[in-house]
């Protein structure tokens, strides 16, 4: 029998109480939020529970919400997949904007290793306990985190492209 979303919700609520919240069917995927301090416990539970069996971490990425309140400026999104019942879920965990950090899940799902490095690379989110948290795609010398919304679209100090030759003015770009 297929795994029902109500069953997932019930099991999580009885185990973790109000720390797992905002359950909703978002388009075609069942989504909910988890408080960042219990993320490893929730993911481990989803993986090891004999009925839930979310054995595969499809994706892990960051999101920046600069307009949110200070405590919810960053989010980490986890996509889990149960191969046995072919059920997918999405977990969001919000992080503090001034000091974004969350425990690593790379010891639960090995594939999270590079995905967390990528998230660190682009958002500067610290994954506590990650075995090798350093930049993966950008060059090591980089000091900024380019996918944060405050990152300027263009380098204002560039000398190589003269806007006059490209027909660009501050109003049209």
């Amino acid at each position, binding site marked *: 029998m297929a795994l029902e979303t109500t069953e997932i919700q019930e099991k999580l609520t009885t185990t973790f109480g109000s720390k797992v919240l905002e359950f909703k069917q978002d388009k075609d995927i069942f989504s909910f939020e988890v408080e960042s301090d219990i993320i490893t416990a929730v993911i481990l539970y989803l993986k090891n529970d004999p009925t839930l069996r979310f054995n595969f971490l499809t994706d892990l990425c960051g999101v920046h919400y600069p307009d949110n309140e200070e405590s919810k400026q960053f989010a980490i999104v986890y996509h889990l997949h149960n191969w046995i019942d072919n059920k997918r879920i999405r977990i969001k965990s919000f992080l503090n904007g001034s000091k974004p950090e969350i425990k690593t899940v790379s010891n639960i799902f090995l594939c999270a290793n590079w995905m967390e490095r990528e998230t660190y690379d682009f958002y500067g989110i610290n994954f506590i306990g990650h075995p090798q948290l350093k930049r993966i795609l950008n*060059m090591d010398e980089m000091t900024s985190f380019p996918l944060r919304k405050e990152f300027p679209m263009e380098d204002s100090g560039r000398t190589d492209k003269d806007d006059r030759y490209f027909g660009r003015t501050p109003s049209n770009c």
Partner: protein
Amino acid sequence: MSDSKINMVAPPEGVVGEGFFATRLNDVVGLARANSLWPLPFATSCCGIEFMATMASHYDLARFGSERVSFSPRQADMLLVMGTISKKMAPILRQVYEQMAEPRWVIAVGACATSGGIFDTYSVLQGIDKVIPVDVYVPGCPPRPEQIVDGVMRLQELVKNESVRRRSSPEYQELLASYNIQ
């Protein structure tokens, strides 16, 4: 004579006599170098595909003396950089250039290698001339094989007319020093 269609490169200007031919060393060396440029393809994206067509039988870059594609920088004369070079790739490109023996030439093929192209962004090197000196730029996104062949022919002209002393000249040393090479 047979009906073979082998084209020979014309000899340089000189004095012909019975049993001798006198000309300038520069011209002979230039002629030899220009017609045996061993290419080193550094292909990272679609321009590399165009280069494959350029090397293949239809466009046949071998007609210009570039028969042997060298995949070792140590045995190559002409570095063809084709495709987007990210800033993370820049030190690798530089290392490849440094490993090439003098005399060495560089062709930047396509918009990305010459100027960063459409990738006007934080991760992309805005033209390889930020890290290595470039002799010929081939425009296009990607350029057609004819354009790449044209770029090679223009480089051949440069090579033919280059002084044998250029590589030890103070100007050249200065150029390399401006790129922090050696």
